[in-house]
């Protein structure tokens, strides 16, 4: 009870902080808001990425959206476990195949079967390179095979990597945008490589044209 209340308050505080820092604004696709149950897949450059997506979603979409995150990172300390599990209700998956007791795709499918949405980062890890996007892992494809009915919504988070670059611990306030693309589905007879290439292209299409380097 107290734990739930603390988690609720913490989520509001984290969201207010994210908003004050970034004035985060959603740019929806012209077809409107994403479907109630979706798999949001986004670029990953900062620990704050899912907070930002979460913060810009309207409440009825937000309450069912669960981020997918690496278990070894979020279970490191009591505080991060509290934030990961209680505050954001994250689906914690084991990234190291050797240490796995559960198949991540099974875990995520089970969550979808419960009616929740997923926020996931198909690059698998934070992108700290000069490249705009790292090659996608195949989880997105396997998920699309299991639940072809659930819409996959590409998302591009812009500027958050400048708010808190790698190795810094004080964030700076900058305006961030979260752009949502057109929901997509796995096509009949589409191969894994074709689908992944299409998903990558859909996400990159949402990125602003690169005019300057933000190295």
């Amino acid at each position, binding site marked *: 009870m107290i734990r739930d209340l603390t988690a609720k308050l913490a989520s509001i505080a984290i969201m207010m902080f994210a908003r004050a820092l970034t*004035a985060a604004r959603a740019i929806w696709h012209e077809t409107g808001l994403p479907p109630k149950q979706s798999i949001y897949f986004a670029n990953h450059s900062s620990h704050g990425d899912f907070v930002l997506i979460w913060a810009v979603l309207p409440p009825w979409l937000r309450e069912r959206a669960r981020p997918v995150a690496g278990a070894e990172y979020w279970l490191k300390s009591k505080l991060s476990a509290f934030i990961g599990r209680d505050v954001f209700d994250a689906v914690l998956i084991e990234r190291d195949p050797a240490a796995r007791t559960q198949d991540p795709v099974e875990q995520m499918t089970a969550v979808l079967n419960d009616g929740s949405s997923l926020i996931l980062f198909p690059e698998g890890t934070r992108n700290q390179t000069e490249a705009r996007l790292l090659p996608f892992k195949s989880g997105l494809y396997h998920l699309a095979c299991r639940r072809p009915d659930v819409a996959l919504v590409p998302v591009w988070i812009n500027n958050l990597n*400048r708010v808190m*670059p790698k190795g810094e611990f004080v964030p*700076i*306030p*900058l305006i961030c945008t979260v752009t949502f693309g057109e929901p997509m589905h796995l096509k009949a007879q589409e191969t894994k490589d074709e689908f992944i290439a299409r998903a990558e292209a859909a996400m990159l299409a949402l990125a602003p044209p690169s005019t300057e380097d933000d*190295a």
Partner: protein
Amino acid sequence: MSAATLDMLKLLLGVGGILVLASSIGYVLKQRLSPDGSNGAIENLNARIKAWWAMVVLIAIAFVAGRVGVLLLFAFCSFAALREFITLINTRRGDHWAIAAAFFVVLPINYVLLWAEQYGIYSIFVPVYAFLLMPIIAVMRGDTRDFLLRIAEVQWALMICVFCASHVPALLTLQIPDYEGRNVLLIAFLVIVVQSSDVLQYVWGKLFGRTKIAPTLSPSKTVEGFIGGVASATLIGASLWWITPFTPSQAALMSFLITLMGFFGGLVMSAIKRDRGVKDWGHLIEGHGGLIDRLDSVVFSAPIFFHLTRYWWSLT
């Protein structure tokens, strides 16, 4: 009720009346020309009027809350403006600490000094201390690429968004004989003259605008809008002499200078937007764009208005 409160009440009633009129006109225009919300210009006009209501209510609350309220309001404006500005400039990893210092050290100290009425140190804090310390913080990171450009941009952001903008609440620190306790009315005077000049330039321009005044900077600004707006805002300023320490002709001259600075300030800020390839500074105020889009003319006129008033009227 003190005389200052009474004057403030009269002003608010006046501004409220104008907004009621504007909202009614907006409503009639919408019914006649854009009942389905398809006319972009009318939708934008109504969004702007709505945002004006919000801004007036916010400023009124700050005035009621007194000195601290006004300082907090402008500290927030500086924060939001700086955030818009820094978002658009070239920064590199090496600027991280300098920018963090701008937000979390320089900005608060600037406003605390105003709150403490330490005018001497306030007036040089950003132009001298921050000016010298910011590049020192940046240089520690050892990244020399575009160094001058990068530190100059952060410097400019601070001067515009923090130092210049804070000259609006700085008006509260002036000590003008026979004007004690009424300084907040100077802020009202400045804001009303600048903003009515912006609005009237827009209205005159929409009605009679033919000749573009600065086609490469701001295609919507016209000679007719400029002359009509400046002249009518100067008249409004002159008619408000009773809330200022000025005579009617002094109030007119002040208003004229304020509107000129505001106009040219708008052009300067447009040039920066063009260079950065954006139409608005942000999306904070619906219909208006970012906060800087609304604040640009105030930022340029406030320091000049402050110093003219200080030089000729204030004891401090």
